[in-house]
């Protein structure tokens, strides 16, 4: 669940940093291996998110001055 809170965008950002860092070759080997592990985890998670994503649609309805959220059904 904790992973879910990281947005796709944040994951991409992180991934970019990791890959850039690894490509620069300036990171000690041991740290590089850890980063690699982290990076592949994020990639897995991104794939999963893209595969499993399902559009969520809701509506804001104002009734008698009160605003409620309702799910949208076509």
């Amino acid at each position: 669940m904790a992973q879910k809170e990281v947005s796709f965008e944040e994951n991409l950002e992180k991934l970019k940093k990791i890959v850039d860092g690894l490509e620069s070759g300036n990171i000690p080997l041991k740290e590089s291996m850890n980063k690699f592990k982290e990076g592949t985890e994020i990639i897995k998670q991104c794939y999963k998110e893209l595969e499993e994503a399902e559009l969520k649609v809701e509506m804001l309805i104002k009734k008698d001055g009160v605003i409620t959220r309702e799910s949208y059904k076509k």
Partner: protein
Amino acid sequence: MAFKLFRKKRKNILPNVSVALSASEADSNLIDKRIFSVYEITRHIKNILKGDKELEDFYLRGEISTPKQYPSGHTYFTLKDEKSQISCVLFRRNAENIRFNLEHGMKVIIRGRIDVYEPRGDYSVIVEDIQPDGIGALNLAFIQLKNKLEKQGLFLNEHKKQLPQFPKTIGLISSLSGAVMHDVLNVLKRRYPLVKVLIVPTPVQGKEATNSIVDAITLINQREYNIDVIILARGGGSLEDLWCFNEESVARAIFQSRVPLISAIGHETDFTIADFVADYRAPTPSVAAEKATPDINELKKLINNFNERILNAIDNLIKINKSGLDQMASRPIFRRPLETIHAYYQKIDSFEYMLKAKISQSMSLKRKSLEISDSKLSALNPRAILERGYSIVMKGDKIIKSATEVKIDNNINVIFYKGELEAEVKKIKK
């Protein structure tokens, strides 16, 4: 005199009437032609004008001159043509229905009626409606509002907010009826199903539309909804149908929107004021949905690309480290470790040699100095002196250095280089 003349005249006109009668008739004539007050005559004129069917409701073409709006909301102007002019009043309640502003020199067609303003005795046209002559009223209102907002800088690029690359929540303001919902949601589903959509349904046509759209924009801007981008959309329609998107209040609401807003109103060829103020204008609702989101296929490619890069990077890193290790292992210290030790041996040998040389040098120096000291010492040895032929004379333990130190018959010892003898003093020579 005048009176007499009058009487004479009357006589001439009515010759059969007596003078006496004619005098009284003249008086009654005067009473018949009663004297009006200014008010009465004005009232009379007003009634005549009001009684004229033609003046009750007519159209009038002319050019507006010097319009002036008063704080009351009423506008006064003169309508002119080449030959004449007439003053006009546009009361506030009628002005509210007119979507453009009156400007000096504007050619118009007015629908109105004539009325008299009694306190001033002026007659003027009470304007019921006013249309631009030669161009539609809506068109003119559009042009005028566009000019106004443009002057106020509402369309400037510097105010355009950047659309987010990866929106988490999209606010969709549109009507639930019509194809817009379907089109937009379909595109989002196909393109970026990661996103959440929050719809604020609103009429997009008719009287309530304007306020409802303004409310929707304001509502969805509230931070609790966490909207990243707004799509304000409507399907195609006539200029009248789309009119609410040309209302100033809608334009201002869009301008004030904290959240970036994409407008997609009507068909590709329709441009509304809302489009000019929006941060991005999409030609259709579907394009708006595309503009608001990244493409999932592109994202998959991007992730693939990252995957390749990270594998390559780690592969390279391992290669580099391995080759570094190989290089290290191929150094002489690891390949022929004894060689290095031998080098140390040599060094030690050379040190030893140098040490010995140093020592022998210092020894010979010392020896030399010892020899010198020795020769000096032997030069001072009394035996060496004796060897040269000198003798030492002693009396008891005492060396005699003077003849006075002895007396006749004293026994003395004479020491030679070789041997010693005992003698007696025979004679002393002083």
